[in-house]
């Protein structure tokens, strides 16, 4: 028997070998940039060099044939280099302006939309969903594909007041991330416990410790050690499910989408913010989740119509006031919008600032 191969613990690779030559030459020496059209940027270096970037949307989960096609395009038009954005768009850097239009034409011909820059709706960052996650309440790639079909025009155009970043997560852990609009599954019923399995697969004290509201306690059920949930206390967060799969939280009928708005990580103008609940009870309805699209489009259309240039969705809502936000989007305001979680009192209105 041969010696096992030990890994080369090389860590994060060097960036330099993978940089387009114009980027390598002008590293740290860029002067300014402009957006020539949706999806196309021109960066100008202090040396006078220019690089054109063409940004295309992808499906993120790509088969090798699609990837090789994208690489053929890079070899033909972009000197054999590409990069990916945080939202799984592919970017081609082009040193020669005359290749920009042919590159756009080629990408469009192959079915890849050009856009996602500036005040557009860029590709939705998302989680794994039914394709690969072990705790998913819904699919992610499918829901995103359906939504991006509906928002296609907003990707290839730059007609929003400011950029719109949407995220989708298949549970409240929210791996998909914070966004101007965050679309997440919300469980609405406590976990259903398979008591015959708990003792076999769950480390009970760590499950008890995981619960944020102390609703789980050890119990003997049918003569076997198990766990029980105080259903009045339970907030249906699902935190118990990953360490204890017999505490099934996903429910084909009762796990619904909740939609949140106003998340922003940039420091531009206002400080970074987390997204806030605006809609819930939206059905988890594959394969196209039309009810989700409807709510998202309602929000986007009110924002597009009413916000000022450069206002992100949260900044717009803060300016016009949240009562007006619900009025303009047509979404119902319910008792569930009023925060009662730890520290939630700071979200209540302690002033006479009221718009009539």
């Amino acid at each position, binding site marked *: 028997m041969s010696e096992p191969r030990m890994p*080369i613990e090389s860590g994060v690779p060097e960036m330099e070998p993978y940089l387009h030559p114009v980027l390598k030459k002008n590293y740290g020496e860029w002067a300014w940039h402009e957006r020539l059209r949706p999806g196309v940027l021109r960066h100008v270096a202090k040396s006078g060099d220019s690089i054109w970037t063409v940004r295309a949307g992808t499906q993120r*989960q790509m088969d090798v044939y699609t990837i090789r096609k994208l690489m053929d395009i890079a070899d033909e038009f972009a000197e054999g280099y590409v990069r*990916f954005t945080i939202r799984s768009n592919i970017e081609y850097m082009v040193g020669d302006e005359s290749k920009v239009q042919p590159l756009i034409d080629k990408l469009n011909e192959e079915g890849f939309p050009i856009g996602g820059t500036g005040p557009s709706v860029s590709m939705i960052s998302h989680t794994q969903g039914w394709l690969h996650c072990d705790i998913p309440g819904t699919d992610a790639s499918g829901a995103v594909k359906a939504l991006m079909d509906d928002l296609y025009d907003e990707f290839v155009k730059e007609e929003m007041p400011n950029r719109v970043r949407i995220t989708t997560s298949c549970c*409240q852990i929210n791996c998909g991330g914070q966004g101007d609009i965050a679309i997440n599954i919300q469980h609405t019923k406590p976990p259903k416990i398979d008591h015959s399995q708990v003792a076999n697969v769950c480390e009970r004290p760590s499950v008890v410790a995981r619960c944020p509201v102390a609703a789980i306690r050890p119990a003997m059920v049918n003569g076997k050690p198990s766990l029980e949930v105080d259903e009045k206390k339970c907030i249906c967060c699902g935190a118990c499910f990953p360490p204890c799969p017999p505490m099934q939280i996903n429910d084909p009928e009762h796990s619904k989408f909740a939609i949140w708005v106003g998340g922003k990580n940039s420091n531009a103008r206002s400080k970074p913010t987390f997204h806030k609940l605006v809609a819930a009870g939206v059905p988890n309805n594959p394969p196209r989740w039309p009810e989700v699209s409807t709510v998202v489009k309602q929000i986007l259309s009110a924002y597009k119509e009413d916000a000022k240039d450069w206002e992100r969705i949260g900044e717009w809502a803060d300016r016009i006031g949240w009562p007006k936000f619900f009025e303009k989007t047509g979404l119902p305001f319910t008792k569930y919008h009023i925060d009662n979680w730890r520290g939630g009192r700071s979200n209540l209105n302690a002033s006479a600032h009221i718009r009539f």
Partner: protein
Amino acid sequence: MAKQMHDTPMLDQLESGPWPSFVTGLKRLAKDNDMMVDLLGQLETSYETRKGYWKGGTVGVIGYGGGIIPRFTELKGDDGVALFPAAAEFHTLRVMPPPGMHYDTDTIRKFCDIWEKYGSGLIAFHGQSGDIMFQGCTTDNVQPAFDEINEMGFDLGGAGPAVRTGMSCVGAARCENSCFDEGRTMRMLVNNALDDMHRPALPYKFKYKVSGCPNDCMNSVQRADLATIGTWRDDMKVDQDEVKSFVAEKGRKYVIDNVITRCPTQALSLNDDDTLAVDNPSCVRCMHCINVMNKALSPGDDKGVTLLCGGKRTLKIGDLMGTVIVPFMKLESDEDFETLEELATEILDFFAENALEHERTGEMIERIGLVNFLEGVGLEIDPNMIERPRMNPYVRMDGWDEEASKWAERKAQ
């Protein structure tokens, strides 16, 4: 020879519409890959029943404790046999990309060849923690697939209670707002902690993210245990000729409405001659005016970084933003990088020793208080760390005089 395709009426609907379809990709792979045939079968079942059918397990490569996401099907018949046996094992290899996610086509083609040989042929560029995700591998093929990827110069990323794969923005490679060398910083931070990445033994995950300026394109403030965000401490740079051209092109009203009045601290004013006056001590470096007038305005020359600690999402106590722990640090010389590396090590060690199981840095800081954390890692307090001073009077302050004299000493330095 691939097996017979399953009927997938629901997934088929995701092949229509203008956006690129992952289902079309899966089907193309399924033409000569049985794993993909059965993956489509299981996924279609999920669409019908609205349930997921994967469970985790333990699969790894020799020498490492993490980096592979094991997935075994739970969709089995009464006899315990998988209904979609060719996709019964569907593991993912998390592989760290170069900073900024730059590639040459040759490298990506080699990835494709390896993944066609050992895996399903499905690759995600990239997962939410920044990894290239090679999705769909049997237990037996994980090791040989990793060996070939590893020989190319790529390494597994993090999973489980470990240092996770880092992310950095495009930064100095293509952005005029870059305030430091983001790529070098990310490599330094992650590679310094490889043992804690490859052999998970921390209380919970620990993430580094690196953004070159306060636009924070990597979302580090909300998602990183240690966020490194570029900034500057001298005056921002103004090219008054370019300001004048911008005003001439866009008009005074546009500039007043979209630049001057949008400044969060009212540090800007448009002069009568269409030049820009900047009250730099009031500027909070939010980036807005620079974003709008990027040809005329740019970050200053005395650049560095702000460090924030403790950002995370929901589990377990709800969302937490990172908190400023170092308002400004130079990051230019080798010594500067060593200083950051040492501080990052201190923070990681403190987290490893003091956090409870399944507790992130932000939750740990909330539990023990920022001051205890700062003392633990050897950082001085600074008024930039707070939104506002304490409002609650229930505190013992018998050490006040001593603390006040510490402040006076620091001011005198």
